[in-house]
């Protein structure tokens, strides 16, 4: 199976941020995302989500450039104030052009 290597960025954030965060993700050049409902515990645990479910977990397949841009955006705009956690890995996909994005 011929595959190409792309980045997979996973972001966990307070549910109240979901709409804004997905907009920011697409604005940063990603071509799509997959979102699941989640809950969790962390080291800060400061949130306003009591009444609104808990976290969302968002995965983004993207080229390395867009992936780095995403991490940078998160570190600059979101980490300081919100309960947001993110990580990036490398995966193989069959049709890489789909995720090249605008980054």
């Amino acid at each position: 199976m011929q595959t190409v290597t792309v980045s997979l960025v996973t972001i966990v954030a307070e549910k109240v941020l979901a709409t804004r965060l997905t907009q920011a993700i697409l604005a940063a050049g990603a071509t799509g995302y997959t979102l699941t409902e989640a809950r969790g515990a962390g080291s800060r645990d400061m949130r306003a989500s009591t009444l609104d479910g808990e976290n969302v977990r968002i995965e983004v397949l993207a080229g390395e450039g867009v992936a780095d841009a995403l991490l940078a955006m998160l570190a600059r705009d979101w980490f300081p104030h919100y309960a947001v956690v993110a990580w990036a890995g490398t995966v193989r996909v069959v049709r890489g052009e789909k995720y090249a994005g605008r980054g």
Partner: protein
Amino acid sequence: MSVLDLAAANLLSPLLLCFALGALAVLLRSDLRVPEPVFNALSIYLMLAIGLKGGVELSRLPPSAFVLPGLAALGLGMAIPLWCYALLRQVGRFGAADAAAVAAHYGSVSAVTFVAAIAYLDASGTPYEGYAPALLAIMEVPGIVVAFALARAGGALGGRGNAGEAVREILSGKSVLLLAGGLLIGAVVGEAGYARVKPVFSDLFQGALCLFLLELGILAAGRLGDFRRVGPFLAGFAVVMPVLHGVLGVAVGHAIGLSVGGMTVLGTLAASASYIAAPAAVRLALPQANPGYYLTASLAITFPFNLTLGLPLYNALARWIAGGP
């Protein structure tokens, strides 16, 4: 009945006891939770039911009857954040963001506290003005807007926070939409159309509210761990301000000629603090404000206080001011 008798009767209603049962579940570390989608659906149901019922009543009144009470509610909602903010900053020594965040919550209103007031009045057979749910809808957003303006003046808006967007979101948020939509639908279909959906939207109301309060008890008790963080000033604020706002609301209601029931409702609305619309808006607009302050104060202190002691107090005051027993 004396105020104490009334408070006791209120405390021993199924609604309050279900709230207490939810809180007890947390203390016993039980796994009891009303599943989130169902809780969510219950809140849609409650808002729509309040709106529909109010709309049917509204359809019977001339629009003019509503102008003065509407303005009074608007005024209360916009004024309350002013002194809350000043007090929190000057006396409480809170930063601009935290002060504005708390002020937004007390300027807005709590729909469930409103509903508990209605149930309280119904149980004691006290009539109230039919447009009461419209007052609830009116008071949801303005206090938040004023608080955001204060935050901007205090230099606390900026960065990722976006007050305009946050306000747009609550204005089109489900609670305003369902209340306003329900009022409109109720007014259009009138008594006859309402009769067809009454078994759901009226007969089930109190029971559904029991289940909703069960979960609210769980959520409120879950905030008790933050009690220490809140500090004595904010804890006092969360009990004293509701009483002052309640007195103010009753007085304003009297001034514009509301019935005892209407005064109780306006007092309760003024006294109540939002814990659904406001937290979401504040989290987005004022990310640096600490939810440990505003959520704990409104949900874990003011809400149960109003539910248990506040309601009978505002009602007794209204009856006293009206010269009743």
